[in-house]
């Protein structure tokens, strides 16, 4: 890839990022998914855990923020391609010289970055309204974990967008896929509570490693080697997801052109 083309792609990603951000910021459903729902889950979690000893508030704040991250990935990133189809702009996007995947990268990054606001809002709520002493055990490592998590979630978003576009019926499974990830990834409670047979499933999910890294660096109750392991796993999964999404995008665009289903509702 030439540097000129790379600059062009980066410019597209930047433009799409800004446009998508503006659209999301005024959408009632998105505001609920990214802000209201995680906030209500945080309040519920803080209230349910009030009898617990120890620094549980930061665990709940980070965990509820992650529920917002996953829900927005599922609902918004999952429909990144289909929404263009519903608006009648998918043919134009596929027809332009810029690959569709580049446009979807910009949209997915925008979704993931916006959904981080749920974690910030949860932090503010717990610290200012509920007056919990919220301290990050390893602030620098937490920031690195957050960057790794954004990359892993964005890569996952690049898999589900073409997957849902190929399998239109699957999108109606969105509601059913939301809570299972909250459970299996250990956003709000350790997966040790779950039956043993679910553990390998958790290990195969990038959000689990993201939760593990973020909880470990915010609560500080695990050795650093575990944090590095989580980063490594997120990196590994990001690479796998990117390779998989590259293949899915090729299949999707080819299939849509052959079957003439680009505008199929």
């Amino acid at each position, binding site marked *: 890839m030439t540097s000129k083309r790379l600059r062009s792609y980066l410019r597209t990603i930047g433009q799409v990022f800004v446009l998508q951000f503006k659209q999301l910021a005024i959408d*009632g*459903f998105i*505001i*609920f998914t990214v802000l*209201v*729902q995680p906030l*209500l*889950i945080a*309040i*519920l*979690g803080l*209230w*349910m*855990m009030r*009898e*617990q000893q120890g620094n549980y508030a930061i665990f709940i704040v980070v965990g509820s923020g992650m529920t917002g991250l996953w829900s927005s990935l599922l609902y918004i990133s999952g429909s990144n391609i289909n929404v263009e189809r519903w608006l009648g702009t998918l043919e134009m996007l596929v027809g332009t010289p810029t690959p569709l995947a580049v446009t979807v990268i910009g949209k997915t990054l925008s979704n993931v970055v916006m959904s981080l606001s749920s974690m910030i809002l949860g932090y503010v709520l717990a610290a200012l309204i509920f007056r919990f002493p919220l301290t990050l055990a390893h602030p620098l490592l937490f920031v690195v974990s957050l960057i790794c998590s954004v990359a892993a979630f964005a890569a996952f978003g690049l898999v589900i967008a073409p997957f849902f576009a190929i399998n239109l*019926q699957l999108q*109606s*499974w969105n*509601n*059913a896929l*939301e*809570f*299972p990830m*909250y*459970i299996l990834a250990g956003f*709000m*409670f*350790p997966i040790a*509570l*779950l039956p043993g047979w679910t553990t390998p499933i958790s290990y195969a999910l990038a959000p689990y490693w993201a939760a593990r890294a973020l909880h470990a660096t915010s609560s500080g109750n695990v050795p650093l080697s575990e944090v590095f392991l989580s980063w490594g796993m997120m990196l590994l999964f990001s690479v796998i997801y990117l390779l998989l999404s590259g293949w899915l995008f090729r299949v999707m665009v080819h299939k849509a052109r052959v079957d003439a289903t680009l505008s199929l509702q």
Partner: protein
Amino acid sequence: MMKRLQAAFRIFFTSAYYSYIALFRWFRPAQYMASKIVMPLAQILFFAFLGMYASGRDQASFYVIGNAVQLAAINGIYGVTMSVGGERWAGTLGYMFGAPANRMLVFVGRAFMHIIDGMLGVVLGLMWGVLLLGVDLSRTDVGALALTILITAASTSGMGLLLGCLSLITRNVMFINNTVYFLMLALCGANVPVSSLPGWVQRISYVLPLTRGIASARDIVDGASLRSVGPMLVGEVLVGAVYILLGYVLFRQFEIQAKKRGTLEVM
């Protein structure tokens, strides 16, 4: 008189049936399973595990029963709201308000199938609790529990009818629905005992449907008789009736104003 009664029955059941069919016309069995089996199961498990993490495994029953009864709100809030508001999106409001049919029957009919479907959802939720988390129903008066589920599903549908009317005047009804649904998860005692909430929050809890229904269901599973939970169930019926009445007043007001201003089809 007999003929009018027959016509009323026909209008009620026909509109109830067709509004339900219309809402789920796009559904396939796998999608129905996703919405009615997988999603409720995952929601119950999430809150039950969170609750067990917070207060120990022996508290599983508290969370399972609370969240299973709360499932009535999936139909009561989302289903009923969409059955009322869907008329606007389908462009059929004009026909509905142009017909001479009794408005109360048409309005309440929108909730009928969702009450039955909601009850089924609660039963499935309890079944998951028994199978997966060992909830003990051996001391339960089944008839009393069934009546509690029926009343709770109906009162929650009353809230749905009111929200459905809001969907006739606002485009952001899903935002309202989602927020109300999650607020009910927090305030109605499904996950946090109402008595442990601050006083002003408790007052809100008791004007919401579900609160008394969830408390009654827990008492019945613990071995209480129908007589002992009777006052709570009467309260649940009254709360539901108030919401239905408020919804109906709003529904009639919408019809009158829309006809007067010619805004029936305005989006």
